[in-house]
């Protein structure tokens, strides 16, 4: 079946079988950021944003996303231009093996888009669906706090630039 989708800002029409999960579809298209972990929605390694909301792509069929927009970690930033959440994860050393990191970062990003100044408890709740067996959760929580500060600073400096300009 035909599937029209916007992935990381690029809209294309794809051919997909009706039973294929979004995770398998994305990986078959070269988006290797979403990882296959538990296959049950428990680990969050496959997390992406579907129409701006975090979902476990292993549990959603690709066909369901017809006409929608998807953000994977590849669309958030790139090595030359990291998103502040990615920068913060690097600076705080919130990643070890990296398998859970795309999911953690996208959960953090979705949270900060809705709530730019989250409490620690809100961060912990937002990351609750992303299991990490290497770092534990102290560093990722710190990274989200740092990202919130960085994004706030960026927003302030952008406003200042706009008012000068």
């Amino acid at each position, binding site marked *: *079946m035909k599937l029209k989708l916007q992935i990381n800002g690029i809209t294309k029409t794809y051919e997909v*079988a*009706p*039973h294929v*999960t979004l995770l398998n579809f994305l990986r078959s298209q070269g988006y290797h950021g979403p990882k296959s972990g538990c296959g*049950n*929605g*428990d680990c*969050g390694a496959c*997390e992406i944003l*579907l129409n701006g*909301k*975090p*979902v*476990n792509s292993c*549990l*959603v*069929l690709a*066909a*369901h*996303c*017809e006409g929608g927009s998807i953000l994977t970690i590849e669309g958030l930033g790139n090595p030359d231009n990291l998103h502040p959440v990615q920068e913060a994860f690097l600076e705080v050393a919130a990643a070890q093996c990296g398998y859970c990191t795309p999911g953690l970062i996208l*959960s953090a990003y*979705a949270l900060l888009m809705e709530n730019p100044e989250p409490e620690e408890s809100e961060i912990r*709740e*937002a990351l*609750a*669906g*992303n299991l990490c067996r290497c770092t534990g959760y102290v560093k990722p929580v710190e990274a989200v706090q740092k990202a919130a500060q960085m994004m706030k600073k960026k927003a302030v400096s952008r406003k200042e630039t706009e008012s000068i300009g």
Partner: protein
Amino acid sequence: MLENIRDYIFPKTIEAAVRRMYQGAPGSSIPFTGSIDLVYPLMTQAETLLDISRLGLDQITQKGHKIHIGGTVSFQQIKESSLLQDCLEGMIPKAASIYASRGQRNITNLHDTLISGTNYFDLLTVLVVLESKIHLHGKTRRILFLEKALKNGVGHGVGDEIVRELSFIKPRGRWKSSLQRVAVLDSDLSILSVAVMLKGNRKNCSEIRIAIGSGITHPSRFPDVEKYLAGKPLKTAVLKEAGSLVSQAIEPLDDLRASDEYRREMAAVLLEKAVEDCLKKGDSTR
């Protein structure tokens, strides 16, 4: 995996979805909302998937004193609903938030929960204590109490009904409420959950509703225990007796999460805790 699925359709109306459901053999076309999580067992027999996520069943509304939760409203929407937050001290959003993570709550809803026969969510326990009704659309349209639907099953085991919505009368008067549960972790499925709605005070229980779910065959009310408590002072001895009655009345599961014996004991403990919690929230007679 699921290579039996040949077709994926977005029906334009509920009626079109229902017509399609009854075209082939029972279970060959099933309604669902895009996620394979709960509906997977039904999908293994199906040829056509009917995605009903775009039929406008994703609204939470209030009409008069009645609250309507559309069948495809996600658990995350329920968690974030200010309308539901305003009802019974937020017991419904609290129950929805217990389930898993945000990524899973965004793709889980009452439709898929109910047609798949999943009955262990605390949200169902709370909806049963609220005397919710379920609106089903299959060969015929049925409206029945959720408790009865949970007992008899929705979709006749082959997913041939659409859950249009759940509705309940917004509790009026001074109801106090409490949801108590026991689980290995906060975010884990409950071993047992008890929801209580209470009018009265320590000296006199004027009205009480009790629902127990998660670790029993299906979430249920306990009218005999409710009758026993109505009109009585809520003293320790009375609560102990009510606990003992509820322990005898439930049909607990015996599985890897807990033994049936443990669940019987916890039913009494959680009932007492729930009543005490309601009483702590103040006198609800005035």
